[in-house]
């Protein structure tokens, strides 16, 4: 068999060495009543048959290489340079385990240290961990961490937070007695944050792409000894004020845009960064620089007493496996882009979104719902149900926007549509979309 190299003769020889006569004898501790049940699985395929089968399944999907896509909302069609894929597909990275034996893992450990640094540079925060599963679960962990630091259990959530983030927060809160309160972070100037609030969670740009001014928010949150958590889009930080500049305490990002394919929703890469003073309350793995016994520079996993394999039920989180390989992609991407490249991606996305919005705004029956300035996404009120629009657009090779009619935070929600542009969106694609919308609206 293809992945089990021992020959039948070797298997027999090994069974004899073990001192048993048959395969059956290996399962002696298993109750006989449960051995060899009926299991229905498809007949095995050879490798060429398998490739053909998988290619057929793959071709039943409308991919972003052959279709224009205007979907965003937490998963983005940004460009990933070939070099990024080539690096993450080196099998020395992808077939290694967690670097628990540092002498054999200096490559991964140094890469994690560089990733941590890059995320700090990007966000303006002091420390970042080696990655979380995704932004949603990282945010859940951040809320738990804030409650644990402040010993409070109320969490103020901005209403225009991604609805899936809200859903994950709700699940995470269940075990911790955390109470979520949706509250506009722009509470009036005269209002003070109640002192039983553990943290305030904002998203910038928010779910419908709006960029808000949060310059004075941290000061007011800190006045109540509470924690400020910001969810950011790492691509936006090519242009926009960083969490560090806003004096945010915990910065959570979805790293998918950093060279990671959309892949129908995962695997992605949760970015988790905080201030130096909170490092010991932080979940997740951390690599640190140290020296070997000859004084040579090296890297190890460190501060592991926060983690489940040492601290068990007293750990800061139960996380073990993270998204290490996706962090390799993000490391390579940020390195490849540098400050100028990231700024270019952000500017192109920003300009494209406004180019499209300006044209849609002129169509009868359409209205832009997101307030200026918005970044690369915006909500539109449509004259026809978004679901219907998407269906018709698909026939023209266009994957339309997200139907957010159920999202209660947007006015005119009976027909609300969230569109997204990136640096990969072309003028031709936008012109074609606008042309089709004009036809459909009339």
């Amino acid at each position: 068999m293809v992945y089990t190299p021992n020959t039948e003769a070797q298997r027999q020889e090994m069974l004899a060495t073990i001192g048993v006569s048959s395969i059956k004898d290996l399962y002696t501790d298993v109750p006989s009543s449960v051995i060899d049940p009926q299991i229905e699985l498809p007949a095995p395929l050879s490798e060429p048959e398998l490739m053909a089968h998988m290619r057929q399944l793959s071709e039943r999907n409308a991919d972003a290489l052959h279709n224009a896509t205007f979907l965003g909302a937490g998963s983005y069609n940004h460009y990933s340079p070939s070099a990024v894929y080539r690096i993450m597909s080196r099998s020395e990275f992808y077939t290694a385990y967690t670097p628990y034996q540092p002498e054999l893992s200096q490559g991964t450990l140094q890469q994690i240290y560089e990733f941590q640094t890059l995320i700090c540079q990007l966000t303006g925060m002091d420390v970042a961990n080696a990655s979380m599963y995704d932004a949603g679960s990282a945010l859940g962990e951040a809320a738990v961490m804030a409650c644990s630091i402040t010993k409070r259990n109320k969490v103020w959530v901005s209403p225009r937070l991604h609805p899936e983030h809200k859903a994950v927060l709700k699940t995470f809160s269940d075990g911790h007695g955390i109470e979520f309160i949706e509250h506009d972070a722009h509470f009036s100037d005269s209002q003070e944050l109640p002192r039983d609030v553990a943290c305030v969670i904002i998203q910038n740009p928010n779910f419908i792409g709006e960029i808000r001014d949060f310059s004075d928010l941290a000061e007011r949150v800190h006045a109540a000894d509470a924690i400020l958590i910001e969810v950011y889009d790492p691509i936006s930080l090519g242009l926009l004020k960083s969490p560090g500049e806003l004096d945010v305490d915990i910065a959570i990002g979805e790293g998918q845009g950093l060279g990671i394919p959309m892949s129908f929703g995962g695997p992605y890469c949760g970015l988790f960064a905080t201030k130096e003073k909170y490092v010991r309350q932080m979940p997740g793995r951390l690599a640190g620089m140290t020296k070997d016994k000859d004084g040579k520079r090296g890297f190890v996993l460190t501060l592991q007493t926060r983690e489940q394999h040492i601290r068990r039920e007293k750990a800061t989180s139960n996380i073990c496996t993270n998204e290490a390989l996706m962090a390799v992609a993000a490391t390579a991407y940020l390195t490849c882009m540098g400050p100028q490249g990231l700024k270019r991606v952000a500017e192109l996305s920003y300009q494209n979104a406004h180019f499209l919005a300006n044209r849609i705004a002129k169509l009868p029956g359409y209205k832009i719902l997101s307030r200026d300035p918005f970044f690369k996404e915006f909500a539109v009120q449509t004259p026809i149900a978004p679901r219907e629009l998407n269906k018709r657009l698909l026939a023209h090779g266009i994957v339309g926007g997200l139907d957010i009619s159920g999202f209660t935070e947007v006015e005119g929600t009976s027909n609300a549509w969230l569109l997204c542009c990136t640096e990969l969106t072309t003028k031709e694609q936008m012109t074609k979309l606008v042309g089709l919308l004009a036809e459909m609206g009339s």
Partner: protein
Amino acid sequence: MATEPLIFDLSSPGRVGFSLPEVDMDEAPQLDARYLRGELDLPEVSEIDMTRHFTRLSQKNYSIDTGFYPLGSCTMKYNPKVHEDVAIMPGFAHIHPYQPEESVQGALQVQYELQNMLAQISGMETVSLQPAAGAQGEFTGILMIRAYHRARGDNNRDIILVPDSAHGTNPATAASAGFKMVSLKSGPDGNMDLAALEASLSDRVAGIMLTVPSTLGLFEPNILKISEMVHKAGGLMYGDGANLNALVGHLRTGDLGFDVMHINLHKTFTTPHGGGGPGSGPVACKSILADFLPGPIVVKEGENYTLRQPAKSIGRVKNFWGNFGMHVRAYTYISHLGLRGLKRVSEDAIINANYIRVQLKDWYYLPHDRMCMHEVILSGKNIKAETGCATMDIAKRLIDYGMHPPTVYFPLIVPEALMIEPTETESKETLDQFIDAMRKIAHEAHEDPELLHNAPHTTEVSRLDEVGAAREPNLRWRRPSEAVVPAAPVLEAVGSGTA
């Protein structure tokens, strides 16, 4: 191998490694300064600098593709290359999770069929592919158990039982879900102490988390009795599927009385470990828990696949539909092997582990001298007593023989533990080389203990100062001009662990 500079040391102002269109539009409003960031301090390198840097870093890694990697409990088996080619097919890699369902029928079919395959293999009714890893699967399962009790008005169950041999994620999960964790001592034979279990069961117990086979690499012979006892007390059985590789195709966790379990696709179904992730931890359950699964899950209506939220779902544990890239790989693997191939996985994993057991038991202490499953736990305690060489020394010396050490110091209940999981993808020849090296090391411990104490001798770096790293953490590079305020010193123990 030379020390590789940090990527930040390779930076030159103005150098670029990207190629993107120019910005040729200016319709967007000029952003006010209050929205704009200050300087963005990222490295500026060329593509060749970057390619060489990360290639050289990769060469500093040990990996399955470079050698034997017998990490117990981690299932470091070969990751087939065909999986990687499938996962990057445009129709899998470049589709958005919110696309209209009619535009992703192929992807939904993969998920639907994988759900069914995992249900068949585990002997469970329904599967959610959402959890991103084993620990998140555990969290999901424990929340489902709580939801089940609450839905029945049974609100006093606040305890989860966890054996002392369990992975650290089990107690951490119980705590994360808001339960009190009560630890159960294992008996001297490695099995569960049924009297201790009986004494711990009460109407406060929500459930028990058990790993099958156990982290001692043993199959619990009383498992049916244990299920019966837990169910009789009103509790539910949670199965940690980390060791499913030992059972796949030959028996089903569901038939042992488990109500809910997670399955690590990155172990049994060989999606790559990626240097620590991504994983994927689908949760499978019996019909009594199906309504509580996190959603959405994929259902088939006529000829169409569609996403559906279970009726009393515990909600979401992450964004979107799970680590789809891993689902594609696991589906490819199961489609490739079929039932016969999967049965062979289990058989050869067990043969290989027992072969090592009988070949090393005269050299190392074997705490449980009986048939093991897919991994064998040895102990270096006798060697330590006789020579002063600890398990860590043995592990580091193995590196000089060109192999990755086994998991060490886990499970916690075995002193000086060496947890060896060869997996089915290794040949007898490779195992013989490992056995030979382990015997030589046992000999060296007696002849020349310093050789072990100072190992490894062949790597770029020797043993690293982990205590110093934790005492004064250096977790990022800073420009020499940036002042660093070190965190307050805190002393702590540093150990090895597994996941």
